[in-house]
């Protein structure tokens, strides 16, 4: 009888212990999840705060970022899918700034290209004009006409002593030259020989637009 009672007590104690274990296990799991959720929420908040700070800096252009770096930053923040109203507004504002910056850059580049093309056209015209003079001097019918053209052509140059280099051979960056001469001697050479055997390869100008060095190449 006593043994039965002891057995019953052991059984109840076992039940009680099991119940306690089960209860504490459930509540422990619940609190762990809660902690993790709180941690995730905190991380999201931190990310949002950091992203906002980065975007505000971008908008105020305090980080001296290039347009490409700005685009990368916005793209990275968008990829986080943080979905915050204030952050979304900042993203939109940043994208507008980047778009404006890109448009401005394109406008500057287009203007630079236009100026370069204009300069190239201007120099080509000037090259053509000088080439025309060379041809005209070489094909002059009289000495007087040739001399007049020599004097006209000299006006394009900073002085009659401007060096003239004539490339006789070129391979890659390597160049061989004839003995360097001066523009006056070269123009007189054209007049004497009656042939224009070289064409303009390169011209250097001074700040007044006068030629200070002429590089020709054998045709």
């Amino acid at each position: 009888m006593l043994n039965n009672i002891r057995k019953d007590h052991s059984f109840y104690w076992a039940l009680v212990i099991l119940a306690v274990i089960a209860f504490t296990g459930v509540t422990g799991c619940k609190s762990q999840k809660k902690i993790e959720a709180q941690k995730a929420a905190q991380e999201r908040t931190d990310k949002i705060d950091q992203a906002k700070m980065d975007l505000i800096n971008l908008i105020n252009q305090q980080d001296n970022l290039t347009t490409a770096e700005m685009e990368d930053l916005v793209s990275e923040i968008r990829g986080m899918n943080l979905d915050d109203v204030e952050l979304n507004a900042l993203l939109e504002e940043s994208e507008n700034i980047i778009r404006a910056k890109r448009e401005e850059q394109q406008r500057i580049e287009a203007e630079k290209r236009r100026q370069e093309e204009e300069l190239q056209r201007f120099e080509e015209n000037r090259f053509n004009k000088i080439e025309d003079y060379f041809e005209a001097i070489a094909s002059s019918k009289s000495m007087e006409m040739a001399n007049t053209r020599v004097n006209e052509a000299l006006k394009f140059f900073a002085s009659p002593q401007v060096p003239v280099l004539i490339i006789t051979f070129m391979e890659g960056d390597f160049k061989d030259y004839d003995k360097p001469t001066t523009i006056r001697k070269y123009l007189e050479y054209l007049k004497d020989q009656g042939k224009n055997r070289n064409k303009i390869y390169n011209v250097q100008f001074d700040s007044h637009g006068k030629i200070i060095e002429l590089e020709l190449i054998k045709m």
Partner: protein
Amino acid sequence: MKNQSIIYLFLLLFSMSISGLAQDNISPQRKMAIDSLALEKVRDLSKYISIIGSKETAWSEANRVIERTLELFSEGAQMGVSTINQPKVKYYDIRTYLERLMALNYDKVKIEWFNIEYMSDLERMPDGRYVGVITIYQRFEGSSGDKMKYMDTTKKDITVYVERKQTQIGGRLIGFWDVLLGDVRVIETKP
């Protein structure tokens, strides 16, 4: 005797290696450009001589062209002059020759050079210079009034020297080929 043969063989090999060092190490295309440049200088000379000789050229212009012509020649170069009547060739320094040419006693002088070509190709000497010989034929016609007074055709050989030099222009070093003409020797004169 055996030792002597070995020494001779050694000397022969040594001299061959030295001449080998003096050989061209420039590409055929580059050499061709140098050949053309030297030929062009001779053609330039041809034109200058016809300008100086021509009675239509103003005195001041002829003198200017003489100065340009002198720039083509090396120091001390001489020009051979011959006539059909006088087989002995006379040699003058270039300035004297050009001044005599300018003062020739004809009303009209016509000088033309033709068949300008290499008689011996430019070859590199041990001192690094290239030396070659260019042959030209000169047709001379001098007349006074309507009557032809004198004409001949002379074959001449011109020694050509080409030297690699450097100069500074605009702050950079420019490598150039300095072509200078040497003596102009008369080979033969025909009517």
